């Protein structure tokens, strides 16, 4: 089901059993939530953009790849290129403690045992959606910063690294073998691009960005 109302939560249902998928979808419809069905893990990986969904509902026992492996893969890809991963809820027909611990350690939001009470399911989904609502803006601001960083020239990026490390213009000049004046010029241009005034503010904004993203 395509996304019609952007204000309503959009859920991805990944389950090999058509009955389960359809019944869950109907249940979500009673709340006017939207959803998308995926039979296999590979379908999801190939066609969907994780950030489009507010929550992922994954069955642990699915063909090709277990639900946990799918979640693993998504996290791995997000590390390679910055992407937003919404909270994930896991279903299993026969849950056990080690599997639950593993899933939660990998960042799963919750763990539900089949057959699940519909009320428990809705509660868990609501909780997940609220987590999504909280974390999505932070991610978005970070991605903006990253876009700006991507627009910097190579030299500017070097200067920026030095600034974030807390060096003065003179030190930066001697490190990069350029004059202090040039450093000052770079610094001014960087501030313009980030639309901020001082270097202190710049360092504060860049603090939350993980080092891997820098590299990319």
């Amino acid at each position, binding site marked *: 089901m395509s996304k019609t109302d952007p204000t309503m939560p959009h859920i991805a249902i990944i389950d090999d*059993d058509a009955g389960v998928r359809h019944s869950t979808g109907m*249940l979500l419809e*009673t709340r006017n939530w939207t959803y998308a069905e995926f039979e296999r893990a590979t379908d999801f990986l190939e066609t969907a953009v994780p950030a489009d969904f507010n929550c992922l509902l994954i069955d642990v026992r699915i063909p090709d790849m277990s639900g946990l492996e799918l979640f693993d893969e998504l996290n791995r890809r997000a590390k390679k290129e910055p992407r937003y991963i919404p909270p994930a809820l896991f279903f299993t027909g*026969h849950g056990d403690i080690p599997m639950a611990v593993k899933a939660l350690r990998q960042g799963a939001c919750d763990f539900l045992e*089949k057959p699940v009470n*519909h009320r428990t399911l809705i509660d868990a989904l609501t909780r997940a959606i609220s987590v999504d609502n909280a974390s999505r803006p932070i991610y978005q601001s970070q991605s903006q910063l990253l876009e700006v960083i991507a627009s910097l020239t190579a030299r500017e990026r070097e200067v920026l690294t030095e600034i974030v490390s807390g060096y003065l213009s003179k030190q930066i000049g001697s490190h990069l073998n350029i004059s202090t004046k040039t450093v000052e010029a770079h610094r001014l241009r960087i501030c313009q691009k980030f639309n901020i005034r001082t270097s202190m503010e710049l360092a504060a904004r860049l603090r939350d960005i993980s080092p891997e993203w820098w590299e990319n």
Partner: protein
Amino acid sequence: MQHVTHNLSQKLIQSRWPWLAASLILTVSLFVSTTLGWLWYTDQRDSAARELSLDLLWLEQNVFEALSDNERMLQNWAHDLQQSGAGKNAEFVSLVNGLMNENPALIAIDVLDKNGRRRFGLPNYSERPKRLPPISDPLITDAIQRCLAQKKPVYSRVIEQYAPLWVLVVPIADDAPGQGVVLATYDLDQLMSAQVPWWFVQRYDLSLIDRDNKQLSPHDGTVSEPEPAANQSDEFHKLNFGPDGSGLSLRARAHPSGHSEKLLITLSAAILGCTLLIFWLLRLLQRWLRERLAAQQALSHELRFREAMEQSLVTGLLAFDIHGTIIYVNPALCSMLGFSEQILIGCKAPFPFWPEQHLLDCIAAHAAMLAGDNPEQGRRLYLIDSRGTELSVRLFASPLVSGDSNPKGWMVSLYDTTELQKEREALASSREQLYAVLSGLDAAVYVSQISDGKLLFRNRRHTDLFNLDAQADCCLLSWPGLSHDTHRGSIEFQDRQTGSWYHLERRTILWVDSSPVLLDIATDISASRKAANTARERDELLQHTARLANLAEFATGIAHELNQPLAAISNYSAVASAYLDVTPQDTEKIRQAVALMSEESQRAGKIIQSMRSFIQKRAIRHDLHNLGDLMKVPLQLLAPLAQRQNKTIGFDVPDHAILVECDAVMIEQVLFNLIRNGLEAVATGKKQTELVDAVQVKMQRDPEINSVTVSVTDRGRGIQDPEKLFQPFYTTKPEGMGLGLAICRTVIESHGGRLWAEAGSLGGACFKFRLSCISKKDESKNNE
């Protein structure tokens, strides 16, 4: 150094060349001396020949001079006869007489007339004596004619008339041949003897020979044969004698030197003989020297051998004189006792090798030896060596006898038996150890004779474990399951009295007298059997757990499969109830949800059905089998369990085949489960009394309804809860799953049969199942 020269001379004697050199030198010296002797001899002979020729020449001249004197005188006197007259004749006779007296060789002087007739002469005779040759002798006539012709004195040829005679014809008148002649007759023998001086005769053998080498004088009456000239040419000297043409010659020969030549030959022969003798002696000497050398070498070898023998002798030898003083010790004794030879020889009792603590024994032994009391087996004594170590020795003494039977002393030999003693002790202790080990052994050891099973040895353990009769040494100990004629093998058996299990190993070994005997070693294996049983039980428990885990996995799979439709149903019901709560009711949605619910529940039913068909897939193969044959596999599988519990399974199967159309594996499983249940029931129940099977299996055919009934009856405690018996997961066993009987029933029912339980005739439970079997008609049809 001495040794080297000794060796050198030995080599010289042994080698050949000194002997050759000696022979050579001898030969050369002999040759030189012979040559020198020969030279001296020839020189001597030459000088003698020279002297002979000189002497002969002198003699000839002497004789010829005398003859010439006579001739001249006769010529003068004959000349005087020209004046014939008696006085003249008488004067002539007297002159001639005187001449004849001076010359005895002149035996006759005749005066002949011109006719050759004797006128007168000396000696006076009437008839001419026989010793004188007749005047008419042709030789004389010839001489007269020659004389008259030459008108000078002429000698006739030699006339042999008793003695060789020589006639000188002297003409009376030179110019008047008719005056006649004077004949002077010489006896040559006489001439020779008269004219030759004594020394000549002494030195030489002189003879007068004529032209034909005929010896004329001395005339020995017989005409000697002329000796071969070649033989004599170099031994005598010859000189012409007399006037030319007389043909006479003088021959002189040194007095026969025959004996000296013989001497020479004898001497040579003697020298040669001596030489040969010397050679022979040399060879003899050489041989003798060689033999002597060989003997010497053999002797020295023998001496060295004796010395080595004495050195290497391990027996100590000791000689006492008649008074008990040591007069000889051998090196072995010295090394045994540690005293030097100098110390020991000349020692008298008490000896330094007598230990203080055994002094009395030693004194007694010494006294006994001197008294002549020497036992054949010797005496055992304790001695000490120079370091104070005690030695155990065996002493043998014997009298030292030389020539006469009186003993000159005592010869004693000592054997060091210390090591032997130690070995004997070690042997005894090792024997004790062996007995101790055998006694302490956990295994029971038993040795018996092969022929009659007579007990030869058994250890303490065997005595403790197995009771034999009082006449134990003559009875057979038979083991269950191993007859006495088995010579090798091993069995396990249970002793009925104690209940212990034993492993018996039998083999044939060689006993101390080298005869083969049976060695039985029985080891108590009750503990290890128990341990093995425990291990097997643990193993089974593990397998059981694994089966449970598999079942759990299976159940998980089923649960997951069922969970899916159940979850969907749950969701749809939530959806339906949600739509029911909303006004206005969306009946379409509700109906859809309800329809989907029924769809999902049907799906759940299908899942269960497919699962059943999956399980039942195995049971589809139905073939014809003999039910009796199907018993074999379960019995084989259960035999170890029965043996472990010491139980037996009896089964009663008809001889003829009972053919059943079935899945062999499944029926085998059913039989296995039922028999196993029976065995387990007996194991937990009463103890089995002997000779009765714990579980009995029977097959009975009911020909009327073409069916067969199989019953498995046990002696357990019976069925406690008959209603629940066939319910799945109902079990009375601690580790049971409660599926066995349920499965059995399912299998039998899938074969169109029936399985039920009833109280058994043996006090326990009885499980029976009935299967339809092929009738004989069907069988024959099938065969067609």
